[in-house]
């Protein structure tokens, strides 16, 4: 019930977000059809703006975007203007004139999702053990090495890691392709580049969580019961220590799934991350709002999933 309520509540939230995105984009100077070369005549520019309804007041454009605009037909009947967000239609792209925003998302999202999911798996798969080990091996060389590694990958941005990985593994040793997106091999370097930072973040969160847990009374009592150290740490400790990671995972996953501008650029990956940035620069209004709405929806949804996971992992948490 609680989650159903939250799910319903996301809808007005998305509306507010789309309104803000829409309004802010229209406030930015310049428009999608301001180009180095002017259209052949002022009439053409007007025709272009009329075609994309840019000549209407912004509130009307917004309602049209939502699909909540009623228009009068020549016969005098009111009818709803077709399409719009409520019909799942993000509208036409103003820059890519043969594509709709739906086309571009449909083409770009699978690549971004794949890369994002791979990086997420990589980040969890390496971050969790790393954090775990640095916590339980506190004071040992494993801790120092692990913590140093985690800090290193946090500090060095993808912009630097990417080219270094390419230089070493793709150009020097030729193990992997330098760029593009056409086989599993092509996914390795981008996954590492995108995921390494999060390996570090997750390792640190996991470590913090584990260190706190190790002081907890229930761990002492577990040990007192005579449980094996592995059972104590993995069965009782891990479950609670992983909570900070879980709450971080929601936004992280949303972030990863919607693509990364830098990594997509370095490896020429056909994802949506590039569009999220470029469409803003191009003033491609429907594309910006479409991607923002997509990101927002994903973020809200995953946060919901995180809260749900919390209730499963932590017996103290109950939602009413």
């Amino acid at each position, binding site marked *: 019930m609680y989650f159903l309520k939250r799910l319903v509540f996301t809808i007005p939230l998305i509306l507010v977000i789309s309104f803000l995105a829409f309004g802010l984009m229209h406030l930015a100077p310049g*428009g999608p059809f301001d180009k180095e070369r002017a259209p052949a005549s002022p009439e053409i520019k007007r025709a272009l703006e009329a075609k994309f309804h840019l000549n209407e007041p912004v509130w009307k454009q917004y309602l049209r975007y939502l699909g909540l605009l009623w228009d009068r037909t020549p016969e005098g009947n009111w009818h709803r203007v077709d399409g719009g967000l409520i019909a799942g239609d993000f509208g036409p792209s103003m*820059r890519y*004139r*043969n594509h709709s925003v739906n086309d571009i998302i449909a083409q770009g999202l699978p690549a971004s999702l794949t890369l994002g999911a791979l990086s997420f798996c990589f980040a969890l*798969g390496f971050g969790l053990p790393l954090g775990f080990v640095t916590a339980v091996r506190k004071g040992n060389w*494993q801790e120092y090495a692990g913590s140093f590694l985690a800090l290193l990958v946090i500090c060095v941005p993808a912009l630097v890691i990417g080219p270094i990985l390419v230089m070493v593994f793709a150009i020097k040793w030729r193990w992997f392709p330098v760029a593009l997106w056409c086989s599993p091999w092509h996914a390795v370097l981008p996954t590492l580049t995108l995921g390494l930072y999060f390996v570090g973040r997750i390792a640190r969160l996991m470590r913090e969580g584990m260190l706190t847990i190790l002081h907890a009374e229930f761990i002492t009592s577990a040990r007192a019961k005579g449980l094996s150290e592995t059972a104590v740490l993995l069965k009782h400790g891990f479950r609670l220590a992983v909570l900070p990671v879980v709450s971080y995972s929601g936004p992280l996953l949303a972030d990863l799934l919607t693509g990364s501008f830098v990594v997509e650029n370095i490896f020429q990956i056909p994802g949506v991350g590039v569009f999220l940035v470029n469409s803003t620069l191009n003033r491609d209004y429907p594309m910006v709002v479409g991607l923002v709405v997509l990101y927002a929806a994903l973020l809200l949804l995953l946060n919901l999933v995180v809260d749900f996971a919390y209730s499963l992992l932590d017996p103290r948490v109950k939602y009413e």
Partner: protein
Amino acid sequence: MKTSASALREKPGALRRFWNAEHGTGTAEWMPTGQRRFFLLPRSTPRIPGGLAFPFLAAALLLAGCVRSGPPADLVIINGAEPESLDPGLLTGQADGRVALELFEGLTRYDPTNAAPIPGLAESWEISPDGRVYTFHLRPHAVWSSGEPITARDFVYSWLRVLNPGTASEYAGVLFYLKNGEEYCSGNIRDASQVGVKAMDDHTLRVELKNPTPFFLDLCAYVTLRVVPRQAIEKYGDRWLMTRPVPCSGAYALVAWRVNDRIRLRKNPRYWDATHTRSEIVDLLPCASANTALNLYETGAADVVWDKNLVPGELLDILLKRPDFHSFSYLGTYFIRFNVTRKPFDDARVRKAFALVIDKKRIVEKITRGGEQIASGYTPRGIPGYDTPEGLGYEPETARKLLAEAGFPGGKGFPSFQYLCDTTSRLHEQIAVELQDMWQGELGVHLEIRKLEWKTYLRAQGDLDYDLCRSSWIGDYIDANTFLDMFMSNNGNNRTGWKNPRYDELIREANAQLDRIKRGNLLRQAETMLVREEAPIVPLYYYAGLMYYRDSEIRGIFPNLLDVHPIQAIYKMSPKSNAQRSTSEMPAARQGTGLSVHNRPPTTDR
């Protein structure tokens, strides 16, 4: 628990235990020794929480999903930015045009060697003595890739579609040379039959022009004038290029277009000149990063990179020395606009003074470094039948005199002003700093550099919200008019506020002129006003094109002023012929084939 320092010295490992005990982690003394052993990773793998095994399983599954099928391409070209459109009537970008030119043919097409117009779908034509009426005879057997015949009516449809105000084609201007073309486009004439393009029969097209337009055959090869499939467009509207198969009229057909991934072309076997199509499957990759483009090329994932922006600027000096980097001059000029509606730049003496202290050589040698030639005139050199006039050179003495005459001796009293540039490339700012140095040093004037993001910059330029502004222009066809008509008083690309009736008159007169020499002289007079007498602009340098590909592997690319390279002519040498090639001396082998002699352009300007 021993915690004293002496205890730490007693046996190895004590320090660790001391640390662990103090910090409450790890083993405690009361634990059985057997379980005090720690592990790097959990020993008992089955007990790994499901959450840890799951990621790897998921990863394996996801990876299986990103494998792509399809044969490898015969030729892979990195084409630059992702095309905004492949619709000849709507597209505006160079990368877009290069693809669309392969898919759709015009009455004429480009000669790969020099970009001159040669017969395309029109096999012959007659021009009336007054130069105003062209009668094109279409190839009777030319068909769409779908098998339907290509008729004169298809051309009428395609051209009227561009002019139709509802299409909102930004490049409709290239058809304003038709009789009533502009009037129809602006809605002053509603009747399409009054526009000067008519199908006399299936294979005869009659075109009537406003003026004798000596570059009209060049225009016929231009992408906006190419023939597009009526049925597909009427059926699918704006999304017609997203359907398969797209009926094509050019040498290639569109197999796949995946945004930001690749465009795959396959030889169109029904193209009238298909016997001369050299490569069967061609992939065109979009690429946003110069480093990535270079990496793809160096590892053999791409054969040709033909976008100047895809050469890493930091490596320019090294790369330009390599034989596979081809620099050539093309129809583009980098220049500065003055806003002549603002004081003190409304005074031609001030503008000229500013122009006269620019050491253009310093800019091309220190900053651009890509083989660019300094520009004195605005129209790049090399246009047949046109001699670009000399603009203002480097004469600081004269400049100071002019500035003094204008009332600012030694820059005294000169208001501070701004130089507008955009942030698309670091180059623009570097040039701005260089200019700032020249103007402050030589004229004693003070300026501020105003950097704006691209669209904001364009808006500021269009609204005349600037003092001085960095600008550039690329020609559409090989004729001076493509550079000069934009500074006519009411042209949307003028953007300087400079209006001169005599200039307008000269351009108009030139374009009504049948005699090529007289026309050239009129245009030359107009350009002299632009770069010498009135100076609303200062040209800095002519662009140099830059491509990279290996001469030993790739044939059929030629440098030309328009930087167009029909893919039909391009092919990769088979490994076998390559092997033969490498056994003989390279220079000798080059001389051997007629084509490749042109492949190495002289780096000096023509």
